[in-house]
């Protein structure tokens, strides 16, 4: 790749896109080279198996190449590619019947959450290495149904806003919020089940005043 790097010194992504549109493989290769680390990091959150990561990354770039004509430059190439990566992963999940959108995958959801202990978690120990924290989180996320894992990944790792999540998943903002709320409850329970040492000793206090709207146990809404 060094030869290609030398061939495209300091060229902007947009300029490389122009060449790639014209069918220049080296230009597209340079784009892949520049963005492959980030794409691999994104798709890894959705892949349950390591072997899936490369397939998803490859599919992302091939899809991007086919859609280069639709890249208008309103967003950066990185943002545009990121969106393709997320959609590629979501499509792959759907193909594998691991639907990240439909609640049908989680028919016992609310009942399960009702049984969860209302224990608080503590923040990761300062002595834990970043990679150790990531592994604990990855394992806890692996316990969650796809619909909950997906919203947590989009929000916490991809830093998407509620609006962006709603658009990507094709659901309302209200549903995004309620799903995030339930996802966090599930994640908390999974984390404590896997690592009881990260639970606070005392239980989370109940609300002082009971809301007419039913408190924290929210149903999904269509806002």
């Amino acid at each position, binding site marked *: 790749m060094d030869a290609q790097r030398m061939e495209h010194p300091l060229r902007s992504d947009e300029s490389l896109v122009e060449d790639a549109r014209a069918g220049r493989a080296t230009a597209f290769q340079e784009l892949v080279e520049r963005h492959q680390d980030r794409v691999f990091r994104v798709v*890894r959150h959705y892949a349950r198996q390591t072997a899936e990561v490369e397939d998803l990354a490859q599919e992302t770039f091939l899809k991007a*190449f086919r859609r280069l004509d639709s890249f208008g430059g309103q967003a950066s190439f990185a943002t545009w590619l990121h969106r393709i990566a997320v959609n590629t992963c979501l499509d792959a999940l759907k193909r594998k019947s691991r639907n990240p959108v439909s609640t049908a995958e989680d028919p016992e959801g609310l009942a399960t959450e009702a049984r969860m202990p209302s224990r608080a978690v503590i923040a990761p120990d300062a002595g834990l290495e970043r990679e150790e924290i990531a592994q604990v989180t990855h394992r806890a996320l692996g316990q969650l149904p796809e619909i909950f894992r997906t919203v947590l990944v989009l929000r916490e790792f991809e830093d998407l806003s509620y609006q962006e999540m709603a658009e990507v998943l094709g659901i309302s903002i209200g549903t995004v919020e309620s799903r995030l709320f339930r996802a966090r409850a599930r994640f908390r329970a999974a984390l404590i089940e896997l690592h009881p040492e990260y639970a606070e000793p005392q239980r989370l206090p109940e*609300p002082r005043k009971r809301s007419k709207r039913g408190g924290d146990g929210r149903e999904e809404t269509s806002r």
Partner: protein
Amino acid sequence: MTHDPHGPIGRIPSGSAPGDFDLGLECAEARVLLPRHLDGELEDEHASHLRGHLLACPACRAHFQDQRSLKRWFVPSAPSAVPSGFSARVAALAVVGAVMVPSAVGATTAPTEIPRLLAFTTGLVAAAAAALLALSLALAIDSRPAAPAGLRADPLPEALQRLDELNRAEDAARREAQRRVDGAAVGALPAPTQGSLR
């Protein structure tokens, strides 16, 4: 992103001041606002109400602390190792795919199927090669000429054959001598054959 104030969390009462616990913001409402606040999705006015409530309400502060702790578990991990040659491979597949499947034609084979197509073709070629090899071996075995009888290897080495001949000759001579002794009742036995090894 702007939230609809008439959404599922209900209308946030106006006129309440930060730090005033009983100015309308109930704990249940505060706990709905907490995630929005931590996700950076809460408008300033509501955030102000929430902060006031948190200052006065230890129970909601505990929830706030819990949710903040929970978010700290989501740290970006080290990037996955990208396989060597990935970019070159993907660029080649993309360009080859575009050439093989011109979009103007509207072919049904998408470029994303190229890797699968290549794998299938490779497998097909490998299977054909294996079948050809097996067939060649079978034909070679079948057409190999049978060895002529004269060329068949003798199980006994040549020295043993000579030894056997000498023994047979000695036995014949002994039988002949015995017959002469028996017939004439007189005469000396022939001297033993020098070559005998018995």
